[in-house]
């Protein structure tokens, strides 16, 4: 697990990656080792990790690795984004960053839904880590249902005036932009809204969550916020919302990849722990209960890995049925819940304190069955295909 080049998976074949992917993985891992892991405890004390981290990641060529080079991206493919997210999951500091490094998904929103000019104007900023953006969909009472959005954008000459609020905005305190979904006279549209020094924008202090991390979410309020009309994502394209929401597959898959990597990390950490701790004169590993639990965990992870790698490949070749990403998100998040729970239990009292990453990984895992569409919503989506 310690070598930068070793894949901290279960050791089985993953033939989906090229040499170039593996090199990208090494750079990403080095970044987490060098820039994140030594600093994360301090950031927790500071209250939030610095925006600077994005610029460093951009300089290292880690952001927008799957976005075409013509827009300033790395010109790689979907597996590059996946690898970045896997390495987030493989890092023992991963949970302490919350979902903070997953901004590539919002770059995809611009890529999928923006006009040519907008892509050329904004995407390079994403790739450099200068733009830190989120898709602003969820509101207090509406959840993630676009049909019930209350935020409005009213046309006023060459501008739009925004009113409303968005919840659960990851990286709230350091966000530079929000891609706000709002109702207009013409229908529901998206607006690329600068947040810093914009009149009428208020970003709440980040919300107190179950997981105490160095990242977090905020609520963001818009009170008569004036935005130039050219910031309307995709211009007047009626399909811009649908195009933007098509990134949901990207989001679900890379999150599934991050969760699964976190399970593999938890497994290895737990194996290390139980092989080094003794109770009643023998290693904890030597109890049959421990071995049976670990065998079950290893099996579940291997099954999830086999499944997910197949989907990643299918997505790379453009043959993924959208319901498959829903199933992957559903199953892997529920599997992660079981795995983290069992691993924490094998740590005993040590698992509950923050001295080992497992306690935060457990608390982080709990939100995975809720965000990006709850397990219930995924089941509704899947059931529609039956």
């Amino acid at each position, binding site marked *: 697990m310690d070598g930068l080049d070793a894949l901290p998976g279960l050791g089985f074949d993953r033939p989906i990656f090229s040499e170039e992917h593996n090199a990208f993985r090494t750079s990403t891992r080095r970044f987490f080792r060098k820039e994140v892991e030594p600093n994360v405890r301090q950031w927790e004390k500071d209250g939030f990790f610095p925006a600077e981290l994005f610029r460093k990641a951009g300089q290292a060529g880690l952001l927008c690795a799957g976005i075409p080079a013509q827009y300033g991206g790395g010109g790689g493919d979907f597996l590059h984004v996946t690898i970045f997210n896997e390495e987030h999951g493989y890092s023992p500091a991963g949970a302490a960053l919350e979902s903070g490094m997953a901004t590539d998904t919002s770059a995809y929103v611009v890529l999928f839904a923006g006009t040519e000019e907008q892509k050329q104007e904004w995407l390079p900023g994403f790739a450099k880590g200068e733009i830190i953006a989120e898709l602003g969909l969820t509101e207090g009472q509406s959840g993630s249902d676009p049909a019930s959005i209350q935020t409005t954008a009213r046309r006023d000459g060459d501008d739009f005036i925004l009113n409303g609020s968005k919840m659960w905005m990851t990286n709230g305190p350091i966000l530079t932009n929000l891609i706000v979904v709002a109702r207009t006279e013409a229908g529901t549209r998206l607006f690329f809204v600068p947040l810093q020094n914009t009149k009428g924008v208020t970003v709440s202090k980040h919300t107190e969550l179950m997981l105490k991390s160095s990242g977090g979410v905020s609520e963001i309020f818009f009170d008569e916020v004036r935005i130039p009309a050219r910031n309307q994502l995709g211009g007047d394209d009626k399909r811009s919302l649908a195009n933007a929401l098509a990134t949901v597959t990207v989001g679900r898959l890379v999150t599934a990849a991050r969760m699964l990597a976190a399970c593999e990390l938890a497994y290895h950490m737990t194996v290390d722990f139980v092989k080094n701790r003794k*109770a009643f004169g023998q290693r904890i590993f030597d109890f049959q209960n421990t071995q049976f639990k670990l065998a079950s965990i290893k099996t579940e992870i291997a099954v999830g890995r086999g499944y997910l790698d197949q989907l990643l490949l299918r997505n790379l070749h453009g043959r993924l049925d959208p319901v498959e990403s829903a199933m992957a998100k559903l199953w892997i998040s529920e599997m992660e819940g079981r795995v983290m729970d069992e691993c924490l239990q094998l740590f005993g009292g040590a698992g509950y304190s923050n001295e080992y990453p497992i306690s935060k990984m*457990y608390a982080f895992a709990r939100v995975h069955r809720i965000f990006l569409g709850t397990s219930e919503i995924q089941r509704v989506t899947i059931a529609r295909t039956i």
Partner: protein
Amino acid sequence: MPYHYTRELFSEEHEIFRASYRHFLETEADAHVDEWLKAGRVPQSFFTKAGEMGFLAVGVPEEYGGPGGDFLCRVIIAEELGYSVAGASIAPLVIGDGVSEILFHNGSEEQRHKWMPPMAKGEVRMGFAITEPDSGSDVASIRTSAVRDGDEYIINGAKTYIGNAAFADAFIVACKTQPELGMKGISMIIVEADRPGFVRGRKLEKMGSHLSGTGEIAFQDVRVPVSNLVGTEGAGMKVVMTGLNMDRITWPSIAHAASQRAFDETVTFTRNRRSFGQAIIDFQNTRFKLAEMKTELAVGRAFLDDLIRDYLKTGKLDTIRCAMAKIWLPEMEGRIIDQCVQFHGGAGYMDEYPVSRLYTAARLHRIFAGTAEIMRLMVGRSI
């Protein structure tokens, strides 16, 4: 909505005690717990008030300065604390007053007269220190030593995952007085926190139960008088055992009450929150899952009531049945609160909703006071 319990097990006097403890928690704990969480500790004033009201060291007789409560008072405290919002943050701290019970049962007359009155008044709090960095639940492998030197013991060693470590005024510490005897060479010795050589180590940050002051303590040539020995030399495990069964009905009771709280919160939340045009509670999946929870709560309640009834009849708690309760109720709590968080959606992950705190608090209940694995070992051996 208050906690539902089995009223016929309690007398009129207990009902009064319950009502007043419930009122006390609502006004003195629930109302302030958010400030306490920011400050990182429960203020002295809370303990002073609790002492004045007779809610501390409840089992200690009046002649030793205690309120003279009985077994059912302890059950009431567990239930009401488990059901309160503050309970998720303070329960291990407040229930830690079970130390008074252990000291009362095992201590000398002198020790009783010295420690019980200030503990009952909330002036002094004690911790119970067994676990060491390398011992886990395996008490026999502790290494803290107490060497007799004239009228004193010289204590050296370190303890971790000690509840109340950050705040307690004294600790009952498991030490090896005769290392060659293994389990039978362990003695419990009171160590005051103001003795030279006593070191309060780090407070350990945890997933939840943030106010329990869990942390490390260490002893560097700490000298205490031999009169600080609790019970006799080598009787350490016997002392530990006197508290165990009580612990193992206390935590299942808290687990049940906390589950009931999460359930009640979830019923209210899903009634008020709408999705796709209807109240969340009206989705069949919600009702089915709530029905399962309600069923589990009823089944778990019946089992706890059986233990209480046993105690009232025999004056004892059966070790194996307590172990079963310590397995089943916290695992039920895990299932129920997990589902309650799920039905809250994003709100369930925000600490302003009680279920978020109940969830992280609950995770500890399958681990401490005897892990689910140790309990399975015990029950397994009884077959």
